[in-house]
């Protein structure tokens, strides 16, 4: 068991009250697993990703536990988290384009960061070059400033840097959303390559695009309104989704070849609930065609088949 998250709850403090952006997430990621984390915008994907490594000033840890490789990850204590960061848990942020200090040469930045974490940079130089090579960058980039690189290059530099210490868990938050299809593919495949070579043990790959998750993830966790609604092996989620939300989401995806004239697809009516005061019970019930009285009670995130969990009364 690489990562084990139990009831993790994180809120955002705002003027009007707490935004329940992550409300009791329970899931686990196995060694070597790439877990796709999918869901609509605002469903809490980034919140989950961030809370596993560093809560920002606006975020408030409310409850739950995280275990990494059998040891408790002190996500509630930012100072205690420091030793874990980079070494054990690492992140490729959503803002990879602007993640590098614009006034430092990349090589120097990496050296300084490593030294500050007590790692001798010289010892890692060769490995660094090798990994840059793996993602198709020449060692030359180390002498350049971030501004001199294209978006895709920066993305890959961040990727290499984040995984340099072979973390157990890598969180990649929408790392490809801003790229066009061919670059997106290259980056995504590079990530898989990292896992295959053991640079990272397991990975959470955040995306809003299920078809992209399908390309590289072993399992997919679908979130809705701050809660996980379904987790299963990727094929299972794509081919035999059990949660009505997942199903509707998939049916709304146009595929190459499908045309309006031939097959008119339908979206999901309605809106996700406001997370300031989330409704009780199942959060999808207002938009769910199957909703019934029992949905007023919150469905458990139950395992209905091995490795397949769904939070729906009707899924059973």
């Amino acid at each position, binding site marked *: 068991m690489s990562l084990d998250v139990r009831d993790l709850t994180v809120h955002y403090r705002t003027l009007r009250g707490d935004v329940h952006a992550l409300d009791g997430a329970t899931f686990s990621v196995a060694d070597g697993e790439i877990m796709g984390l999918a869901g609509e915008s605002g469903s809490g994907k980034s919140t989950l990703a961030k809370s596993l490594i560093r809560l920002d000033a606006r975020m408030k840890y409310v409850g739950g536990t995280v275990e990494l490789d059998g040891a408790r990850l002190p996500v509630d204590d930012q100072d205690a988290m420091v030793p874990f*960061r980079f*070494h054990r848990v690492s992140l490729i942020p959503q803002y990879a384009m602007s*993640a590098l200090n*614009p006034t430092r040469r990349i090589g120097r930045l990496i050296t300084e960061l490593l030294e*500050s974490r007590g790692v001798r940079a010289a010892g890692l130089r060769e490995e660094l070059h090798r990994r840059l090579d793996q993602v198709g960058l020449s060692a030359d980039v180390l002498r350049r400033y971030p501004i001199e690189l294209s978006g895709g290059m920066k993305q890959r530099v961040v990727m290499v840097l984040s995984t340099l210490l072979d973390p157990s868990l890598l969180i990649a938050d929408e790392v490809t959303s801003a790229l066009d299809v061919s670059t997106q593919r290259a980056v995504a495949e590079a990530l898989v390559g990292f896992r295959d070579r053991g640079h990272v043990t397991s990975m959470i790959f955040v995306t809003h695009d299920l078809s992209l998750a399908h390309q590289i993830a072993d399992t997919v966790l679908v979130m809705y309104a701050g809660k996980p609604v379904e987790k299963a092996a990727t094929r299972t989620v794509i081919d035999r989704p059990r949660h009505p939300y997942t199903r509707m989401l998939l049916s709304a995806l146009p595929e190459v070849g499908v045309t309006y004239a031939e097959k008119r697809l339908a979206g999901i009516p309605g809106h996700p609930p406001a997370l300031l005061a989330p409704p009780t019970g199942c959060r999808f019930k207002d938009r769910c065609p199957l909703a019934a009285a029992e949905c007023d009670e919150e469905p458990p995130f139950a395992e209905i088949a091995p490795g397949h969990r769904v939070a729906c009364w009707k899924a059973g």
Partner: protein
Amino acid sequence: MRRYLARKIFVYALTFFAAVTINWMIPRFMPGDPVRTMLGRASLSDPGAAEAMRAYYASLFGLDLPVWQQYLNFWGSLLRGDLGTSVWLFPTPVTEVLLGAVPYTLALLVPAILLSWVAGNRFGAFAARSRWLDNTVLPLGYILTATPYMWLGILLAWSLGIVAGVFPIAGAYGFALQPEWSWPFVSSLAAHWFLPFLSLFLVAFGGWAIGMRNLIIYELDADYSGYLEALGAPRRLVRRYAFRNAVLPQLTGLAVQLGTIVAGALLTEIVFAYPGLGNLVLQAVNNRDFFLLQGAFLFIVIGVLIANFIVDVVYVLVDPRTRTQMQGGRA
């Protein structure tokens, strides 16, 4: 990079041209013609003598030529370093008068600017560190920048000079001394220099501290800081990066603020009767010596231009971003 500097130099050249032209206009389009000022002071009661003297001075100042020729001559003599003759200190050349004063002004300005900039930036970065410092010390910074230069000068002169009698409050060095490399002279020079320097320093210091504090907050909030923290970088490193990046806009700020600080130096010199450009400007105004005034103006503008240029060059050297943009690369 070369193109960037070329462009800058072009702007500076244009500014210089505009300044010189304005400058040339000063004595010519001001009320109270300089020749009449001279005559007035010579108190000639005889109309004939007055007329003769008038013609004499008019030709001396070159005011009897057609306007366009005056303008060209002005450029000509300017390039020879000749700024004309002072009316007030007739017949001393303006350049000579100014060169006597410039060292004092520079002696105040250069250390005040550099030290306040360095100290203000350090302090601002330091204050942004804690809520407590931020709330107690920074208001002080605001008060300091809001203080009129001369008022701070007055307060210092009054409290430390007149009441406490610790510092002298007039002149550049003791009146009993002659410039020489001796301990009494140097210490006297320093004692006279200190208060005007201090008031300049303090006001400017406040401004830099606040600027830095605001910038560093933005920098600490920037994505790259967040990334560093997510990778567990110690606050020291994050702050160092933030500081370095925040210093860059402060450098530009230096260029923008230069004029204000120079103005502050002029006012401070007046308060402390420090024999620099400020006092000259004041006397030039009081004595309607527009040739001196234009000379002082030109000196100051050139000084500010040079300083601006230095800042620009330094900026290019320290900020990689400008360099790439200059190469036409896209951000």
